[in-house]
């Protein structure tokens, strides 16, 4: 444990800490551009120079390991002069175009030039100019502003795992580019915008739409996948301008996926902003009173067993609980949250969450994935697995469709029936699980949505029971794709026959009325002749055969609780108001229940949450992740031979918000085209 003196303060740090990190621990700020906590050390910007006693010249603190007895000064005349010098050199070729630069107001270079630079510049030659690079629909470039910190290059190589960025030419001619100016082939590419300390890489969709100081920041949680990335919603007036990541070491560190970051334009278009009631063949705009009256009329004479409900992937727990209670007053408990036909079971919580937590992947030494493509289903988790593979020696095996996950995996084919061999211990994967100290098995919705999904669940449970569960380690994980799924399972929203049972009963005329709470991932043509009440945000699949449409709030417009795939409860905040007549979902059910004559017993969100906590004891423990009690789940059965089809085919097409987003459509096109091009030249 080296002890060093920084500006007169003694500080003891862990071995391997750099001088810069030690300075931070001592509470001393050191300016930097190239250094980043989560990237390798480059040491090329020289901004972090500090004075070290007995050293002949200033040292780059980011690259100098802290040593015992070092005496560091950061506030001497020499350090001040060194910083001024570095800053002056950096600014030689940096254009003074802050007034027209999107980074202005949140620019490291701007801030540090203010704090550590000289007031003037002695350079009066021509500045260099660099041609802008094309980097796809998400990243806008102004390469003249680049200061060559290499953060983007290191990010793409180390974190994203797509080494497609680099620095071409040298010296004054050096240029950062993506290979052949293609779109970065990653679901995480938007993070380079955050990493860029200057305005060289900025967000294309956000370009010139707002200044950082005009924005209101709301801390919230993402629902684009089941990871629950922590986000900051930046709004101006009623409009969501952008999403930024919020630091959460156990979930998303400081990254977010492109879908999380850029789907914001989908919140503005195709929105349901008024209630609609079908009259004849046409949907006619109605006010809330008329819409509720129509529901009441539709329910007249309908028995409880003729009513069902399906909740969507983006539904918060409050909405689902209120709908469940409303259904209860109507005499039905047929409410289903597994839109994709997954055989995940409610009941044993350990059987449908990621018991180790996302950060737990770093502790594991072997991971067997069954029907999971984390790169598409949860890019943040994939980044974490990649980190564990690179730094902590994790080994990964997969049973499922072959895919480039950006790290080395042992592929055991896509035939689900090999699970039997794994369970019996004969398979290579079983040997690896057995040899590992902290093995993990992760089962995905692709496998569980098969007809024999219940048997697959049982097999993975038994494998986990045999190899992965010990007193202080539970390596059983389920990866969900829907933000609302774990919440739905916590509330027990599962039915016999699942979503397919509801749809086929509706087709057979056994069901008279179906509530769809933002359920857009099903084929609603089965509901053609059934009365459908759709409560949701977007004009998507769900409204196609709807008879009554009740407009609801999206995740940025309501206070909702979501349980992520780890079983961690997190809450969204209200960043803006829902458009037009749209209301928060649970208030719709509360108001409807009053019209129907059996008022739900909660008048405010707190009361509703207290009601949920009665069913789900962990509900009020916000942001806590722990393994649940181990138990039995799944149904023993024969696992049929045959491939596990991927759960997600188009990353940019998974929910009504992203389907409404033009930016996501552009991404899909840019990267889809890329794949075709690659096969063209390689084949």
């Amino acid at each position: 444990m080296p002890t060093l003196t920084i500006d007169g303060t003694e500080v003891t740090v862990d071995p391997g800490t750099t001088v810069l990190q030690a300075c931070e621990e001592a509470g001393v700020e050191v300016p930097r551009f190239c250094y980043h906590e989560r990237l390798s050390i480059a040491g090329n910007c020289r901004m972090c120079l500090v004075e070290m006693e007995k050293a002949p010249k200033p040292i780059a603190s980011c690259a100098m390991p802290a040593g015992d007895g070092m005496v560091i000064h950061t506030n001497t005349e020499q350090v001040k002069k060194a910083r001024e010098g570095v800053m002056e050199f950096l600014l030689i070729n940096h254009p003074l175009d802050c007034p027209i630069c999107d980074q202005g107001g949140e620019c490291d270079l701007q801030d540090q030039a203010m704090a550590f630079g000289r007031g003037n510049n002695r350079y009066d030659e021509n500045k260099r100019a660099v041609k802008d690079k094309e980097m796809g629909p998400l990243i806008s470039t102004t390469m003249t502003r680049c200061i060559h910190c290499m953060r983007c290059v290191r990010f793409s190589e180390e974190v994203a795992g797509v080494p497609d960025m680099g620095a071409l030419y040298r010296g004054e001619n050096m240029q950062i580019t993506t290979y052949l100016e293609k779109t970065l082939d990653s679901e995480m590419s938007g993070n380079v915008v955050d990493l860029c300390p200057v305005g060289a890489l900025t967000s294309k969709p956000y370009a010139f739409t707002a200044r950082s100081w005009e924005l209101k920041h709301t801390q919230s949680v993402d629902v684009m996948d089941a990871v629950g990335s922590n986000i900051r919603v930046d709004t101006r007036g009623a409009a969501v301008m952008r999403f930024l990541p919020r630091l959460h070491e156990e979930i998303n560190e400081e990254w977010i996926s492109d879908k999380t970051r850029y789907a914001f334009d989908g919140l503005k278009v195709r929105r349901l902003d008024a209630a609609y009631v079908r009259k004849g063949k046409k949907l006619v705009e109605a006010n809330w009173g008329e819409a509720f009256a129509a529901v009441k009329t539709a329910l007249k004479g309908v028995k409880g067993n003729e009513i069902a409900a399906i909740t969507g992937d983006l539904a918060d727990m409050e909405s689902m609980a209120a709908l469940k209670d409303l259904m209860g007053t109507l005499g039905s408990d047929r409410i289903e949250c597994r839109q994709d036909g997954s055989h995940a079971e409610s009941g044993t919580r350990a059987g449908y969450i990621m018991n180790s937590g996302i950060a737990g992947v770093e502790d594991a030494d072997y991971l067997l994935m069954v029907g999971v493509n984390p790169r598409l289903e949860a890019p943040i988790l994939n980044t974490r697995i990649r980190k564990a593979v690179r730094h902590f020696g994790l080994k990964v095996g997969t049973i499922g469709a072959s895919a480039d996950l950006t790290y080395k995996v042992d592929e055991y084919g896509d035939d689900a029936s090999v699970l039997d061999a794994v369970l019996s211990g004969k398979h290579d994967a079983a040997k690896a699980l057995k040899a590992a100290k902290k093995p993990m098995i992760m089962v995905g919705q692709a496998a569980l949505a098969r007809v024999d999904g219940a048997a697959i669940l049982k097999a993975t449970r038994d494998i986990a029971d045999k190899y992965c569960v010990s007193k202080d380690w539970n390596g059983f994980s389920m990866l969900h794709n829907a933000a609302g799924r774990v919440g739905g399972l916590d509330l027990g929203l599962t039915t016999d026959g699942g979503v397919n049972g509801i749809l086929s009963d509706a087709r057979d005329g056994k069901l008279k009325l179906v509530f769809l709470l933002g359920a857009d991932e099903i084929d609603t043509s089965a509901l053609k002749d059934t009365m459908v009440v759709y409560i949701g945000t977007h004009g998507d699949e769900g409204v196609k055969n709807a008879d009554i449409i009740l407009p609801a709030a999206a995740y940025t417009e309501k206070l909702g609780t979501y349980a992520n795939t780890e079983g961690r409860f997190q809450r969204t905040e209200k960043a803006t108001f829902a458009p037009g007549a749209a209301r928060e979902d649970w208030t719709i059910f509360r108001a409807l229940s009053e019209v129907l004559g059996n008022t739900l017993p909660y008048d405010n969100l707190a009361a509703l949450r207290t009601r949920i906590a009665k069913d789900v004891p962990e509900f009020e423990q916000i942001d806590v992740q722990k393994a649940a009690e181990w138990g039995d789940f799944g149904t023993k059965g024969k696992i049929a031979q045959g491939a596990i089809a991927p759960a997600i085919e188009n990353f940019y097409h998974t929910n009504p918000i992203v389907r409404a987003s033009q930016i996501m459509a552009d991404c899909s096109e840019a990267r889809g085209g890329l794949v075709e091009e690659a096969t063209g030249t390689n084949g």
Partner: protein
Amino acid sequence: MSKATTFAWTADSKKLAKHHISKYPEGRQQSAVMPLLDIAQRQNGGHLTIEIMEYIAAYLDMAPIKVQEVATFYSMYRHKPVGKHHVQVCGTTPCWLRGSDDIMAACKSRLGIELGETTKDGQFTLSEVECAGACVNAPAVAINDDYFEDLTPESMTKLLDDLAGGKKVTPGPQNGRQTSAPDGGATTLKEFIGKEEGA
């Protein structure tokens, strides 16, 4: 534009490439990227293309951009076709003081091309390079792998004439000087040398 639409090693190149890769420990084959680029450039007649860089990237199991980074960093990797004789005139201070401007002018007038251009017959390409490291024999010109030193505009023109005529040329000082020994013969230790010669 590029000669190689589908590039692949010739037997000789492959042997050489393997030789360079074998210098590095297993798994460190990427270290051989520079000699391999050189081999490929020679095989391709003097310049590299994207296809060649991708071929080498695949051959060494590395990202294409990393090969491109190396290939664009060093000026001796060329990215456009060059003539049979690549005339690289040194223009850095010592050569410049010793008259590299005149050498350059002689080249331009003899070849009828400007800097960076190639003659129509594809024989000569003219470039200026930074310090060739032959300051003692300034002014110096590198033509392909050989240095021609102690040039005058006349000897430069003659050299180009000879090359154009397919005659054999002698690399090294063009004024009769022995390597970088003093111009015009020894200036010190003459006696010693005299005795030796006399004996």
